[in-house]
């Protein structure tokens, strides 16, 4: 703990380390949005009910509103801002656009990062599994059918380009 009563932490976000001083009760969501200005991660409820705040922590999808920033210290965090690499959209981002899986977009970062965690663990998830695994992200615009199609299309893309699967 620092003299200020705050905790010194190192947040590794999208491949970069950030030294932060945060109170013990600050959530990862607050640290990302307020301390780092990474507002692509959204708050839809603050209680773990909506999935808008989902980010990847060591490759797993977590609700950033339920994780304390101090507990995220030293872990590897990926937010929506870090999904595109080398000036190229991630295949999931491209597929979400092409298949119309984004409407207002407020749930989309949570949706895409959940989908990434799912695909990383399970590269040929079928529609049923996708539907079940993404059920933690609420989308009032009702993009679910498009999301499932988008995720499936990425899998097929991977298959076509000779990846395992």
């Amino acid at each position: 703990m620092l003299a200020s009563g705050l905790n010194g932490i190192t947040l590794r976000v999208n491949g970069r380390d950030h030294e932060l001083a945060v109170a013990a009760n600050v959530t990862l969501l607050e640290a990302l949005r307020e301390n780092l200005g990474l507002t692509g991660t959204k708050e839809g409820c603050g209680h773990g009910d909506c999935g808008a705040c989902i980010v990847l922590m060591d490759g797993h999808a977590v609700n950033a509103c339920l994780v304390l920033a101090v507990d995220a210290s030293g872990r590897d965090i990926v937010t929506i801002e870090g999904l595109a690499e080398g000036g190229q959209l991630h295949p999931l981002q491209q597929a979400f656009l092409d298949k119309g899986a984004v409407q207002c977009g407020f749930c989309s970062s949570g949706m895409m990062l959940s989908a990434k965690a799912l695909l990383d663990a399970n590269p040929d998830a079928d529609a049923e599994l996708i539907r079940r695994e993404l059920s933690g992200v609420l989308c009032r615009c009702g993009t679910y059918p498009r999301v499932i199609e988008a995720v499936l299309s990425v899998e097929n893309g991977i298959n076509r380009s000779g990846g395992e699967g």
Partner: protein
Amino acid sequence: MSVIGKSITRVDGVDRVTGRLQYAVDTVLPRMLHAAVVRSTKAHARIQRVDVSGARAMPGVHAVITGQDVPCLIGGMIADQPFLATDKVRFVGEPVVAVAAETELQAQMAADRVIVEYEDLPAVFDMEEALAPGAPLVHEQPSSYRRIAKCQAHDGSNLCHLHEFTTGAEGVERAFAQAERVFEDTFAVPAVSHTAMEPFAAVAVCNPVSGEYTIWAATDAPHRRLSEIAAALGIGSEKIRIIVTAMGGGFGGRGAAIAEMLAVALAKFTDGRPVKVVFSREEVLAASQTRVAAKLTVRTAVTTDGRILARAADMLWDNGAYTSKSPEVAARGGMTVVGPYRVPNISIRSRLVYTNKQPSGAFRGFGTTQTSYACEVHMERIAVELGLDPLEFRLKNGYVEGDSHFCGQRLTGVGLAESLKRAAASVGWGRQKPVVGPGKRYGRGIACMIKGTNTPTVSSCIVRLVADGRLHVLTSSVEIGAGQKTVMSQFAAEASGVTIESVRVSQPDTSVTPFDFGCTSSRSTFHMGNAIRLACEDMRARLFVTAASVFGLPAEGFDLTDSVLSHASGLTLGLREALKKMGARGFEFMGQGTYTPAGSPLLKRDPGNTADDSIFWLFVTHAAEVEVDMETGRVRVLHIAAAHDLGRAINPLNCIQQIEGSVVMGSSLALLEELKLDRGRVCNDSLLDYKISSSEDMPERIDPIIIESDNPEAPWGAKGVGEPAAAATAPAIANAVHAACGVWLRDMPFTPERVLAAIMAQATPEKTVDGHRSS
């Protein structure tokens, strides 16, 4: 190359998928303060004492204000809502004190120190009780409120608004008296939350010298919000500027100054520092606005061979404590209870009632999620009891091209019959029922609806063709998430002749972008589409006149297509090059367009008729396949076929998004959603307890079917698509449940408990109310 009818990818798509869009909740300004709100814990009480001294002494606090500090009343139709409660509170959750502090936490901690003492008053929650003589009055003197002419005050009563319509009382009476059969049903539709995923949020700053306000807001109609706020503050509209942010969905919920009102109230007291208000999810669910809960009684007179002779409806609509757009929902929305049918005799009474509950307002479909449910389940029962095929019964009475609407308007572009037939075919209508598992029953159901648009309203647009060949479209049509910017870009490219990549659609800013009535009533595509078309034609005319003099050719022969300027004489030039030749640096070509359907020949109707006409009518049919679990009452929606007559699809993928998305919402409303109240207090104020459809709850299969029809005034044929789907899904499901297991569902939502109770009640023989004439 035409871009109409193409599924152009969202023009702001890259920002949308990379987390770069700035929503209202993301707004950050230098020296910005954060707000917290103390809300009423009482449904109806006199405020005895407010002690803010403890709050003022807390660290980081800049302003703590009460209703005395902002004696303002707001409301687009009836200005009955104080920014902060003054003498009394009228619903649990009403804002009483607002705090602005350096951080959200400091604001919240200060808010916790505020002491409010109340003296309880008797409260009313039930609409019928509220209308009974001697009921406690939610508002003592409604006539003292500023209001629009069509909203008459009813002092001494909780009646907020009365709307009546009849084609002729005598005719209606005679039709009912002489009819072979008369049917009557009463339906209840609960209050639900729009539940846009982005909570309400706004930032406001007030210049302490000029008194001018700038507001960053996620609102569906910035120019109208501006007038509402200006009127409430009693200042000129020139003193307010609204800058629209990206927004995380609307669904009608962004049709009032909900967070804006609180940000504006505080901004006056912070020495020019901006104040940000963000609602918690609990506040969104319990203390913002809901769909209007309704109780709808529908009566119909028919011949035994299924001809509709008369329809009477008596409807109660729950306004809650304050008035937003519900008078219009009860009035114009209420008229859709007649459905898309030829009915010669109509009598409608719609009463909007004040109660001590969270206010209600517009909700996707503007009354049709209530009326279409009532109309279509009622229609189904008539068909079943007359032994008619429900599809045939609807086709027999449904509007066809050239029919007269009951407002007297001749209907143009009626895709109803096709929508009925195609939706029915998609679910295998008339075919044998598939076999389902033990303890399960299968059923098919169908429901159709009609939805007009608020008419006449105005949209204006300015286009600027600038030196680098880009076309800037200045419009106040908001991108609410449905893809408006993309469709506007398609219109602008098509109408101007520049490539779609050259088009930039502005973010609305009331100090820059011209008036638009708003992103409501499924109107943006049609109205702004026409305004863009006019603006582009205007711009092209100017461009060609200048081109004629620069190139020494007659203006008539010029054309601009795909950003290439050409002339019949053979001249062909890239647009940028042409523009370079045509003017000094900074030279641009502008065009202006204002569209209103007022005066359109399509609106011709009977003189003296008081029903609303509409510049376009949307026709929709949903057909459902369900499986009912007879043990648990659980309804599984296997399939929804959603056929939408939307004129023409400008961007088919966007249309599919709208249709699928609203089917997901519609089935969510049908099966899951209801704000549960205990003496006015919302009990399920979290997304855990107020459940909306997740990917697992949605129908297992959704088939969007696009039906095209001709409306001569529609821009490139497009009518609209945003609202209707949310309305037709519930009755289709209810009717499918009846087909499966024989129970009528007259209360939404169709929870397992409710369905099971209906199944059990049916199993025990009940006395039949089917008299010789009335049933």
